[in-house]
């Protein structure tokens, strides 16, 4: 029977102050975990609202719009008649022409009966002069509400959750442990980064409560400079929030880069580190090099909105496309800030749970750095249809394809690692395999979007939404969940319920595919993104069934994530003690107690074997007393 150590970093000192003023990287990781995961679930609620709105054609929220609408274009049928006609129209797929609908608006404006069914009929309901005033108002309300919901979902997920998720939580906790250091290079800066994050989050929260924004998470001009949001304050506050969050990200990246360079324990060379560290290192480089540019862009955006400095406003001599260039110069590298840590986690999961040496250590390490650097040269592929020159588009398209090579190297190396390994179907391994499947789909569909001709058809459709979510959720979030399950017993010293973990992993996998695989088809059939309503489109019937299925999947996904939260939190407090090395890992974080002591190791760690030497070291030989191997003679230094 395993027991928790008497003293560890969690019970070392007590009181809220000892947490809020801590310099311990492990405690800071937990502080981050609390707020970042809250942001994740909050943004998840916004996503569910978006999916709920799309489950059926017509406006779901602010139904006033539907009540004031005509039931059908053919005169003014009453009651059940209207419903039947509507259903019939559904089945044939031949909705009335928008023009006819508009003409009939006045005649049918007083039909209130059968309004429930109206929501599913096939009329396109633009705000046109024929509508009654009340209908116009509620339609506009519904649109604005929907815009706000997807903006908040995107902005919170990207800036408050996924960018800090892996580096700030798992990276913070594991980086010093894995390289045998006592802490990160700058503990005070580490804590400062958390407070800066909280400040940025406060700005964002203020913007939400003050009236929120409907600019989209990309803050494109002129939405962000003129039209978006109820007033200037919300937009200024949320963009300032992004600016401030950027500092948090820079602090983390800078801290990690210095730590990896200068704080490795004696004997640990660059190629002796776990590949997790390589991934975190590549991420840190991107954080340091890309984030300042979004910082200055956000400052100029705020100045534009506040003082009208005219840099992005064509009527004042500025250029709105310039904003897109500057935004994507950061935000494309930023997707590598999001995915590289996911790659980093997978390295550890596929080796520990298959008891195999990683296949192609250097290839994986360098491909991370290659992705980080190439990532700076592809931002133009977000702007193929923004009036960029054909030549630039060709160059960006070419480099975009090029970036598939290092990503492919990684996937093949992981599969080769698994080949003939003794695979244990633990929850982390299930997540790792999910990642391999989902990220491959996400990566391959990126090729469709990188191809200039195909992109003309697919851009701004659900295909893009599906691709992005396959890479970000199917890639990063799945890897992150796998990492949480892998290191949870190390962080809290307690094991979660494997049965429920596997159930929820299955629900997440199934729900995710239901939600987003559907959207590839939706997009290829021409369903545009960012529409709150798709009634009256040529393929409304098809869209309705696909959107409905997708929304159902979102509920399954939500249920899976909800279960995860419950048993993980339960495990943190009440789980069975997990022991020092429940998975039999060989990297240094397993050569200490679970949870680790405040100073990380019982003795100063010395490099004794590689992190993936499963062919010559037995996991039972890992020892916390020695911070490495039990066999003293095997120590290299």
């Amino acid at each position, binding site marked *: 029977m395993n027991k928790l150590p008497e003293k560890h970093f969690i019970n070392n000192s007590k009181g809220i102050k000892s947490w809020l003023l801590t310099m311990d990287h492990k405690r800071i990781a937990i502080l981050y975990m609390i707020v970042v995961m809250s942001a994740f679930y909050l943004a998840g609620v916004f996503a569910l609202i978006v999916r709920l709105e799309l489950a059926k054609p017509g406006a779901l929220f602010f139904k006033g719009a539907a009540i004031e609408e005509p039931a059908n274009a053919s005169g003014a049928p009453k009651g059940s008649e209207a419903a039947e006609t509507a259903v019939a129209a559904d089945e044939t797929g031949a909705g009335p022409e928008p023009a006819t609908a508009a003409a009939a608006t006045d005649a049918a404006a007083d039909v209130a009966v059968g309004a429930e069914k109206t929501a599913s009929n096939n009329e396109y309901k633009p705000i046109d002069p024929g509508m009654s005033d009340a209908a116009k108002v509620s339609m506009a309300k519904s649109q604005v509400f929907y815009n706000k919901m997807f903006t908040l979902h995107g902005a919170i997920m990207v800036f408050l959750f996924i960018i800090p998720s892996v580096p700030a939580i798992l990276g913070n906790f594991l980086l010093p442990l894995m390289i045998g250091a006592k802490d*990160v290079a700058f*503990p005070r800066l580490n804590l400062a980064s958390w407070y800066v994050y909280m400040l940025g989050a406060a700005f964002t929260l203020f913007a939400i409560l003050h009236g929120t924004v409907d600019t989209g998470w990309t803050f494109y001009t002129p939405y962000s400079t003129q039209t978006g949001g109820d007033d200037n304050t919300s937009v200024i506050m949320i963009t300032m929030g992004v600016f401030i969050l950027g500092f948090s990200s820079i602090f983390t990246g800078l801290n990690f880069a210095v730590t990896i360079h200068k704080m490795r324990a004696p004997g640990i060379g660059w190629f002796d580190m776990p590949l997790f560290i390589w991934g975190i290192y590549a991420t840190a480089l991107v954080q340091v090099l890309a984030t*300042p*540019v979004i910082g*200055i862009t956000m400052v100029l955006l705020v100045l534009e909105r506040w003082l009208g400095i005219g*840099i992005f406003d064509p009527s*004042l001599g500025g*250029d709105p496309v310039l904003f897109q260039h500057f935004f994507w110069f950061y935000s494309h590298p930023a997707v590598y800030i999001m995915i590289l840590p996911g790659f980093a986690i997978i390295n550890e999961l596929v080796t520990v749970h298959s008891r195999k040496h990683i296949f192609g250590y250097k290839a994986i390490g360098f491909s991370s750095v290659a992705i980080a650097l190439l990532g700076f040269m592809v931002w133009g592929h977000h702007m193929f249809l923004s009036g960029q020159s054909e030549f630039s588009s060709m160059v960006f398209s070419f480099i975009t394809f090029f970036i598939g090579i290092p990503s492919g190297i990684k996937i093949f190396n992981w599969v080769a690692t698994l080949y003939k390994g003794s695979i244990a179907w633990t929850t982390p391994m299930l997540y790792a395999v999910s990642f391999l499947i989902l990220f491959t789909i996400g990566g391959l569909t990126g090729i469709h979007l990188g191809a200039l001709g195909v992109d003309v058809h697919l851009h701004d459709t659900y295909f893009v939404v599906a691709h992005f979510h396959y890479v970000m959720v199917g890639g990063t979030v799945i890897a992150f969940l796998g990492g949480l399950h892998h290191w949870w017993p190390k962080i809290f010293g307690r094991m979660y319920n494997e049965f429920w973990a596997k159930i929820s992993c299955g629900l997440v996998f199934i729900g995710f595919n239901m939600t987003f695989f559907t959207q590839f088809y939706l997009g290829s059939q021409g369903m545009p993104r960012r529409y709150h309503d798709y009634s009256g489109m040529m393929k409304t019937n098809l869209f309705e069934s696909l959107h409905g299925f997708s929304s159902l999947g979102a509920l399954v996904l939500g249920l899976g994530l909800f279960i995860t939260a419950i048993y993980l939190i339960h495990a943190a407090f009440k789980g069975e003690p997990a022991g020092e090395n429940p998975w039999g890992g060989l990297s240094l974080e397993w050569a200490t107690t679970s949870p680790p002591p405040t100073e990380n190791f019982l003795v100063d760690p010395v490099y004794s074997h590689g992190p993936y030497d499963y062919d010559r070291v037995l996991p039972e030989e890992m020892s916390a007393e020695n911070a490495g191997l039990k066999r003293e003679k095997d120590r290299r230094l």
Partner: protein
Amino acid sequence: MSQPTNDHGHQRHPALAHHFNDMEQQHESLKMGLWLFLVTEILLFGGLFGFYVFFRVWHPELFAGASRMLNVNLGALNTLVLIASSVTVALAIRCIQLDQPKKTFWYLIATVVFAGVFMVVKYFEYTHKFHAGIFPGENFNNLDFALGKVEGVVAPIQNPHVFFSIYFAMTGLHGLHVLGGMFFLTWVAWRTSKGAYSSEYFSPVELGGLYWHLVDLIWIYLFPLLYLI
């Protein structure tokens, strides 16, 4: 594991943080961290330099004309002041390495004074611009260009405010960095007078100096780009 001695049995320096093995590791880490910070600073300003380049390429006549509204003499004075401050801060680092904290203190004070002179000159430049109705962007309210009153400008210039938007953004951000440097160097000077630094431990002095050189260097680029060409 905050044992008072390191592996060789020497006394640990009081300024050595618990998670470093020795002073050298600490100093090297701090220096690398600061260099990375300087990289982010360059990229921050790099964004603005990018805007400068794009707008200059699109509207060369605008930049040629509008830059005549700036006072080259004041700009040149500020350049000299900043270069002088860079010299004094370099001397401050040298003196602390030679264990001369008194001299270090005065050199740091001199640096802060030079920085103050820079800010005062900048203040006069800005207020003069505001009096002339030169504000960034849509508040721009100066008719000299429209009336052809600017010396050396023949044709009327479209959107002169764009130049000043970039001018105020770049010099404003730079000014904020000067202010930040003044605060930091004042703090370092105060700590120096308390005897916190010596040849064994002078990282904050050196970090402050490195940062100050960057602030100086950015101005060295801003001056010709905005005032001269």
